[in-house]
């Protein structure tokens, strides 16, 4: 039996797929049209399969400063969020997550659904020493609302304090509303009691916002230069090797966090792999696991797809350390040329790379 989100009845017209044990919408007709709707208009996603965990305790700040590679010590206003990796002792990524500050005694964390069990086991293992309590909030549903026209289309559905939020901040109320997302567009992620989710969904649809499936969610996040756990990074790869150095707070130097020693060694040796972003110049589609050839050796594509906004194929790839402008990729029996660019490919509806 597949697990169903509180919004399952809202997806009766979608093509449904088994997504890590959840019955989720892949698309509601056309994945590409849905992609363009989010870039040009507004869309909603059912992301209730994501795991929400509340952490409480007197030492919760101290605990999270030890558990996470980014530093929650930087957070001091209610609802402020950071993106972070949670590492093992070898510096490998157990998961990537967003953590929101409520007070020095309470935080909220959103982690991936595919990694939920190992995440919770890992967090609990270390929480003991700090007497931090975990509570999984499976009583909440989660809806992402994304796109340039979101602000005007949700005016009468979200409270004024939510509309006024700065990026990466949240309103912490019965409806937890965060100005975050996974598309590179403006918008919100709303966590609310499961029984209230269907009516919010229907109201959003009535305001001419389009339902978007997981298919478009993947091409949107790839264009936005955002990693996907399990394909772009895993426990055999450090944040430095996944384009996530910016999420690791090595300062202050006296903050001891899990994985720090291993990361320091990687930094000192400076020969770890790196992540690059590619635009295919020839015709064809870049796909996960295709081999990449550089002057410094071989690598592979971690996420590859067709970019509806660029009309070309794009990818992330992990390759030996080096500076690259051009690499080659093997697609079936052909060797094709791909240009190395600085991500994101697209942000706020605009193409950010020279694709010629």
């Amino acid at each position, binding site marked *: 039996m597949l697990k169903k989100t509180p919004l399952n009845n809202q997806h009766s017209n979608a093509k449904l797929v088994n997504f890590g044990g959840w019955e989720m919408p892949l698309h509601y007709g056309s994945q*590409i049209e849905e992609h363009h709707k989010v870039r040009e208009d507004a869309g909603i996603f059912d992301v209730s399969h994501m795991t929400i965990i509340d952490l409480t305790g007197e030492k919760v700040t101290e605990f999270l400063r030890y558990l996470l590679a980014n530093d929650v010590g930087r957070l001091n206003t209610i609802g402020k969020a950071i993106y972070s990796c949670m590492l093992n002792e070898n510096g490998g990524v157990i998961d990537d997550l967003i953590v929101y500050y409520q007070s020095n005694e309470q935080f909220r964390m959103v982690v991936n659904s595919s990694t939920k069990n190992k995440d919770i086991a890992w967090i609990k293992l270390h929480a003991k020493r700090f007497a931090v309590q975990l509570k999984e909030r499976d009583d909440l549903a989660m809806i992402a609302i994304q796109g340039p026209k979101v602000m005007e289309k949700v005016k009468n559905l979200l409270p004024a304090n939510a509309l006024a939020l700065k990026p990466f901040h949240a309103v912490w109320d019965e409806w937890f509303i965060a100005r975050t997302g996974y598309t590179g567009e403006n918008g919100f992620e709303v966590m609310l009691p499961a029984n209230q989710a269907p009516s919010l969904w229907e109201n959003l649809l009535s305001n001419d916002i389009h339902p978007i499936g997981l298919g478009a969610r*993947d091409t949107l996040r790839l264009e936005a230069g955002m990693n996907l756990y399990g394909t772009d990074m895993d426990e055999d790869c450090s944040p430095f090797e996944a384009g996530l150095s910016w999420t690791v707070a090595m300062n202050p130097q006296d903050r001891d966090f899990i994985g720090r020693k291993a990361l320091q060694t990687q930094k000192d040796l400076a020969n770890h792999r790196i992540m690059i972003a590619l635009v295919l110049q020839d*015709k064809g589609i870049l796909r996960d696991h295709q081999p990449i050839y550089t002057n410094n050796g071989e690598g592979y594509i971690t996420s590859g797809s067709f970019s509806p906004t660029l009309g070309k194929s794009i990818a992330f790839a992990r390759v030996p350390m080096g500076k690259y402008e051009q690499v080659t990729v093997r697609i*079936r029996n052909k060797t094709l040329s791909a240009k190395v660019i600085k991500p994101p490919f697209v942000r706020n509806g605009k193409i950010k790379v020279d694709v010629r």
Partner: protein
Amino acid sequence: MSETPENLKYTESHEWIAEGDDGSVTIGITDHAQQELGDLVYIELPEVGKELKQEEICGVVESVKAASDIFSPLAGEITAINTELEDAPELVNRSPYQDGWLFKLKTSDSLDGLLSHNEYATKIQE
């Protein structure tokens, strides 16, 4: 629901085959196949003049997230390919049995070994 026209032959791998008057056949992928794949974004076809064996991989249709091989349902020589698809792969989604045809083949093989409309329609309901 997907369409399966009665006047066509089919394969297990979701190609359709239309018999022409001149001993050539036209080949495409079925409505069911295009629905399963989703929006197509790239199609690679064999070259005109190429000799194919039966069930030889002769091309690929790629949707946003998946690539799927095209198998030649019969042995023969490629006499034409649908060059429109190079810039408009979505024709296969919009019109899998008309504008979205893939290639034509000159063949001396019999079509009797292929699936009938009924056999294919039953297969995709399973």
